[in-house]
């Protein structure tokens, strides 16, 4: 079915179609509307979900963990400071291998207080062992949630998944999207299989025991392995989803990369802007391509190396900064993945607190990369795009 939905209503609609056992939520801009719409579905009896209105995001995630360990399919949604307040329990969810799916409407962190988009919230949670997927538009945000259920629950993975989308840019933008039927969604995600559920009282289990120097390290090593196995799972589920919908997904989505000599790498809605800029620069004869980084965790290091080796210059767009580090989080990892390759990688930190990123700015970045490719010289490896 073709519908016109805002990002928030698309999230609520996808969740309605998943029909999770438990949703525990706390409102925060810009995702409040998504949960209000989902609460409507609960009130109207369109879903079987037990909706828990928690007293904070820390409590909301804690409820999600309890419900997940009890043996339910669990979802939630948050943003910004809400994600930050979940901090402690994000790790608990991942370490207890709870396949929770959480939508995050990316928003800047305080202070000063700001409600608009950047990726500081998600990037802050990058080491929490959650799988992180970013959407370019509302269609992808919808598609990602449905795939995320399968990825999280896959027996080789069993990790929570965070589906990210840009606050306001996507959450409050109404776009045309194709949605599946409820039955198609149910068929795709399948029945939830609980593993060692707490409510199986005939087979009692203990979650979260004291785990000191004798075993903690082994349990962390297992999480590394789950992330390694997730590469293949994300790819295969992305392909399978393509067979149902005609929209296939991968870790990385290249555009005009076949004969490219320079590249721009971006995630989230900026990849849409960058695609238009790449197309415009191609018409001027610049051999430039775009790499959309759809999945940040697990970080597609091998795929990136394959895609970017032989480039003369690569511009990495970061919508958050890591203060005191050498560049933003995406830059550090892309550069690290390209270790040993003769590629100049340049960082552009942009759009903090929702500052717009325009086509002409990305075109300027591409022009800069052409200069780097011609001269072999980089003026500055870390640049702030659009700051006064």
């Amino acid at each position, binding site marked *: 079915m073709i519908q016109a939905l805002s990002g928030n209503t698309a999230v609520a609609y996808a969740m309605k179609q998943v029909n999770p056992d438990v949703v525990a939520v706390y409102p925060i801009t810009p995702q409040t509307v998504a949960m209000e719409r989902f609460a409507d579905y609960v009130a109207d009896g369109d879903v079987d979900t037990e909706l828990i209105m928690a007293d904070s995001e820390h409590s909301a995630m804690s409820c999600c963990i309890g419900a997940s360990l009890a043996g339910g399919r669990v979802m939630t949604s948050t943003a910004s400071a809400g994600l930050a307040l979940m901090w402690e329990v994000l790790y608990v969810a991942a370490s207890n291998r709870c396949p929770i799916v959480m939508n995050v409407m990316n928003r800047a962190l305080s202070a000063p207080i700001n409600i608009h988009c950047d990726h500081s919230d998600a990037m802050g949670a990058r080491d929490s062992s959650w799988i992180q997927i970013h959407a370019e538009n509302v269609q992808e945000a919808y598609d990602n949630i449905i795939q995320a259920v399968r990825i999280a629950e896959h027996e080789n993975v069993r990790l929570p998944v965070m589906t990210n989308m840009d606050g306001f840019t996507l959450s409050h933008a109404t776009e045309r999207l194709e949605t599946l039927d409820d039955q198609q969604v149910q068929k795709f995600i399948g029945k939830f299989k609980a593993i060692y559920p707490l409510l199986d009282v005939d087979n009692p289990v203990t*979650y979260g*025991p004291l785990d000191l120097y004798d*075993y903690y390290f*082994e*349990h962390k090593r297992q999480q590394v*392995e789950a992330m390694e196995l997730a590469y293949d799972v994300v790819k295969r589920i992305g392909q399978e989803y393509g067979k149902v919908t005609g929209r296939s997904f991968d870790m990385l989505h290249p555009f005009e990369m076949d004969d490219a000599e320079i590249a721009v790498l971006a995630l989230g809605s900026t990849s849409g802007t960058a695609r238009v800029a790449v197309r415009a620069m191609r018409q001027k004869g610049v051999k430039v391509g775009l790499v959309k980084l759809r999945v940040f965790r697990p970080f597609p290091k091998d795929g990136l190396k394959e895609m970017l080796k032989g480039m003369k210059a690569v511009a990495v767009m970061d919508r958050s900064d890591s203060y005191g580090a050498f560049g933003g989080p995406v830059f550090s990892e892309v550069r690290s993945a390209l270790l040993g390759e003769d590629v100049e990688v340049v960082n552009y930190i942009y759009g903090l607190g929702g500052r717009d990123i325009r086509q002409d700015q990305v075109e300027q970045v591409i022009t800069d990369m052409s200069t780097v490719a011609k001269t072999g010289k980089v003026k500055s490896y870390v640049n702030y795009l659009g700051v006064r």
Partner: protein
Amino acid sequence: MKEKGWKECLWGGLIVDAGNSVLYKTGDWRSQKPIRDEKKCTDCLQCWIMCPDAAIKVKDGKVVGIDYDYCKGCGICSKVCPFDAIEMKEEGEQ
């Protein structure tokens, strides 16, 4: 007990065997060891009542020994004994 590698253990420290605390020999923690003098003991069972673990072994209403696998050496038994029948000694001293 041989410690398992990461490929062999269940995720997240999950424990699927109920009643497994018996496998954890907490007696390792002890620095003070209770030594019971059978001659002074009247089997009043004050130590058995007060022991925070279950380290006082009793059979047919009589104290038959102390379970050093689980006794952490807290000394409560020695303190409550009305007949000074339990003496705390430095571990390794006796």
